[in-house]
């Protein structure tokens, strides 16, 4: 695909969602027929703390333009403390990516409960818009994986 930068650009967005809150929140936005862009593809993980920084980098390598991580609100983790660890890990990772000059708006972490279907949809819309504005991921891509 010859990317005509910024026009007709459809970002690839990977969303990691914890099974107990955010994935359910995503389901709820479906149940309520709340629209958000098709660009977002969800990967279910048991807990946000299952998300290894490796997965996030992997997504960028393989052509993702934005990665968003969703988990239970702090204090509500199904496993009591998982998302607290997530928060530290991901804060540091995002800060490091920023340090390396990777655009901040390509990464995001959002706490979405099972009841927040509307928040889920709105977040995804917002995030997709932000990434779309940035254009294709060029700073953290693997040229070998670029679609021809």
């Amino acid at each position, binding site marked *: 695909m010859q990317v005509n930068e910024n026009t007709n650009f459809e970002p690839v967005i990977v969303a990691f969602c914890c099974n107990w809150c955010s994935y359910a929140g995503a389901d709820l936005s479906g149940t309520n027929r709340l629209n958000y862009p098709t660009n977002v593809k969800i990967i279910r993980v048991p807990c946000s703390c299952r998300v290894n920084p490796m997965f996030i980098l992997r997504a960028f390598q*393989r*052509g993702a333009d934005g990665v968003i991580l969703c988990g239970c609100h702090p204090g509500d983790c199904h496993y009591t403390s998982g998302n607290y660890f997530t928060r530290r890990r991901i804060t540091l990772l995002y800060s490091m990516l920023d340090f390396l000059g990777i655009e901040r708006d390509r990464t995001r972490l959002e706490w979405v409960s099972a009841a927040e279907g509307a928040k889920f949809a709105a977040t995804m819309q917002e995030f997709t818009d932000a990434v779309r504005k940035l254009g294709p991921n060029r700073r953290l891509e*693997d040229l*070998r*994986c670029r*679609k*021809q």
Partner: protein
Amino acid sequence: MLRIPVAKSDELFAAIASQQTLYLPADRKDGQAEYRKWEEGVKLSSRLNTVRSAKDFFFPQTENLAEFRMEGKKIEVIDIRKESEDFVIFGVRACDARSFTILDKVYLVDPVDTFYQTRREHGTVVTMACTRPAETCFCQTFGIDPTEPEGDVSCWSDGSYYYFRANTDKGQKFLDSLSSLLEDGDTAALEETKAKTKEILSKLPLAKVSTENFGGDKLNEYFRSEKWGELSESCLGCGTCTFVCPTCQCYDIRDFDTGHGIQRFRCWDSCMYSDFTKMAHGNPRLTQLERFRQRFMHKLVYFPANNNGEFGCVGCGRCLSKCPISMNIVKVMKALEEK
């Protein structure tokens, strides 16, 4: 001898670059030198040598071998080799120039490595005689005269002029193409420079390092030496020595799934790495001792055994200055010689 004033070097480089891609050692911000593509403003480095050796031009760190498309039970092999373009590497030191001969003995013997061969055919090597050898230099040990470097074209500098001599047809053609810039001149000043350099060479701390106790016939004697334990005990098992070495030639072949096909590439590998000889069911070189031994045995014993006594080292001294723990071939040679 054909020569050109050093002051006109930019003109010279521009002329070369107008015909083919020109690479030469240039200084980096951190004070070290690396080969860089010449373009307006790039200056020839005054450092003795580059961090990475010149082998990269013929045997790059990674290169794709082929691509595969898979669908259902079918596999399609795509030959992705391209005809490479002519290029010139300028300012190769005598040690690196000799390393090409050594690599040739691996890659140009049957079955020929066509990837290497193609680049070798397209590259013209212009060497540069040394004038300020460093304490880490020991190329003389391997019979290299840094004041008489090999290559398609040999080049000398006495500070005012660059002098050129073609050694091959390719080199001659190269010099012919620059004939408008080059003039014939006397070499008295150059001979003086050479003599000075030779004097320094005789005073180098490693000038006495000799290969007389090494070679293919020492196989079992050195393999069983008790020194390996002590020598290898501080080795980190990194690949620095291997990757800065101009003669290290080992590689790995790997597949990479790009999402729309499989790329098979090869990349430098190091016998110092713990997974170098690892198989699904075991590893013949389990400890760093064995891996460490392999590297030096290869250069000092196995390689000469297979190549009429030629050693797999050119004494460039890179490993001496770059090894994180300062273990190197000179220390190994000296230790092995001790009885």
